[in-house]
């Protein structure tokens, strides 16, 4: 008992623990805010900020992390993020003729898997062209993606047409029903208004189109959640400082994960936007989840 207490003191972090309890009550508070309030507040990790400030701050975070983004992802997840994205693509199982909008697609991980999947099909249908629009609100992330695409040869002799679009997921400069698939991997939790993102996704998808989201989520098992919290708060910002020379973006990362709705709540939000046949699948004990829905 005493040992457990000593151990807890050794790795004590008072700020996040308090805030962790605060997460639930905060979400309730945000929901009941009246529309008449002048400056609406939202969360930026565990901080409370004005809504228009959040977009700017998130933008800053990704500007800063862009060039070490992929290295840090590997380090923080011990390479497991690659498996998550592989499974995501397997669940998506695109067929030739798919017109994908890869939102928050930045450095290209999902897009490249999409292109590979279509390339590696047993009997590729050379008649039907597929396409992907890689979109991100942050030009630096897109630049990293473009550079990687060129370097790794995804743009030459490809069955897939690729184009790049710097845009805000809440306000897409795109006509209605122009895509038949929409993916957003590890991006939606950074958006200020998740409901708007879902509405826009619904708008740009054709009937029969599929919405798929890969995002960090909550672990149903509370012991596992505790272990995961310790790893997140004790180690990840430290790794950010050592590898990327930045602490704060990674503190934001682990805090923003706690602020995101859990699997069931997010499923309801997707249904509210109009999607049907909404399902989710937990990966790695619930560290992240794949949500899928159709515009029917």
């Amino acid at each position, binding site marked *: 008992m005493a040992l457990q207490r000593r151990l807890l003191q*050794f*790795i*004590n*972090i008072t*700020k996040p623990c308090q805030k962790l309890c605060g997460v639930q009550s905060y979400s309730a508070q945000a929901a009941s805010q009246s529309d008449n309030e002048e400056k609406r507040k939202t969360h930026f990790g565990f901080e409370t900020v004005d809504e228009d400030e959040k977009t700017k701050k998130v933008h800053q975070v990704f500007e800063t992390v862009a060039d070490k983004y992929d290295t840090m992802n590997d380090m923080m997840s011990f390479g497991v993020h690659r498996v998550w994205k592989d499974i995501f693509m397997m669940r998506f199982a695109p067929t030739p003729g798919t017109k994908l909008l890869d939102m928050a697609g930045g450095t290209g991980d999902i897009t490249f898997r999409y292109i590979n999947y279509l390339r590696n099909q047993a009997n590729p249908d050379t008649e039907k062209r597929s396409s992907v629009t890689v979109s991100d609100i942050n030009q630096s992330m897109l630049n990293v993606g473009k550079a990687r695409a060129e370097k790794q040869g995804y743009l030459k002799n490809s069955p897939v047409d690729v184009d790049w679009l710097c845009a805000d997921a809440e306000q897409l400069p795109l006509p209605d029903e122009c895509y038949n698939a929409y993916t957003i991997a590890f991006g939606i939790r950074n958006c200020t208004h998740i409901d708007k993102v879902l509405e826009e996704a619904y708008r740009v998808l054709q009937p029969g189109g599929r919405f798929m989201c890969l995002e960090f989520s909550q672990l149903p098992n509370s012991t596992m959640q505790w272990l995961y919290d310790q790893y997140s708060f*004790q*180690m990840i*910002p*430290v*790794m950010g*400082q*050592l590898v990327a*020379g930045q*602490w*704060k973006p990674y*503190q934001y990362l682990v805090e923003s994960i706690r602020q995101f709705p859990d699997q069931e709540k997010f499923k309801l939000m997707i249904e509210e936007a109009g999607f049907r046949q909404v399902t989710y699948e937990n990966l790695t004990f619930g560290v992240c989840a794949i949500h899928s829905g159709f515009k029917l």
Partner: protein
Amino acid sequence: MRAFIRKLSSFPKSKNFREELEINYIPTNLFQKTLLTIGSATVALLDPYRGDMIACLGEVTGEASLKFMRERMLENNEGAEILRDMPRINSQTICFKTLSELPEDTLGRVYADFMKENDITADSRLPVQFINDPDIAYVMQRYREVHDLVHASLFMKTTMLGEVAVKWVEGIQTKLPMCIGGGIWGAARLKPKHRQLYLKYYLPWAIKTGHNAKFLQGIYYEKRWDQNINDFHKEMNISRLTER
């Protein structure tokens, strides 16, 4: 009357530093400090160009030494004045153009020439992030900003050899673990020719200077720009190893 050469800034210096610290401060517990110590030492050894890792290592391991440095600075008027004024050294507070036009053998001219010859800027010093107490944090910030001046006034180049020698001097005077570690581990990276020079000349000189010289952190350099460098060395009890 010694002349100041300092540009005015909009806030008094101490207010500036405290505000800056509040923005930059990151709370860390013992476990995280341990990880940061091991990690930053490793990264710094593998990649000496990661100055931010040396900075991190210094902050995370240096609290006790910084308290000692502060006590030592308070022992005389000049040091106490620094702690009261909290002056900063960067391109906003120092007019390098004016310094480079001073007579040849003045401290200010030596410093300006040193910065130009080694192609370094006074703006590259990172703000303190992991120390809460502003008085102690300032001592760390000052140590960082004064480091180039220590180099310049000791006539030590920014080669590995010069850096290691300066680290020994600073380590002996400040007791900062990062300096002591840097002196030992940095020396391990020296190539054979430099290692010979290090063992025969630089190391003995650095140890002697560290012990004999006055406390270099307690020198209000900004008030001594036009002091003759020979007088400066005599006053601070520094015996030169090389000429400029």
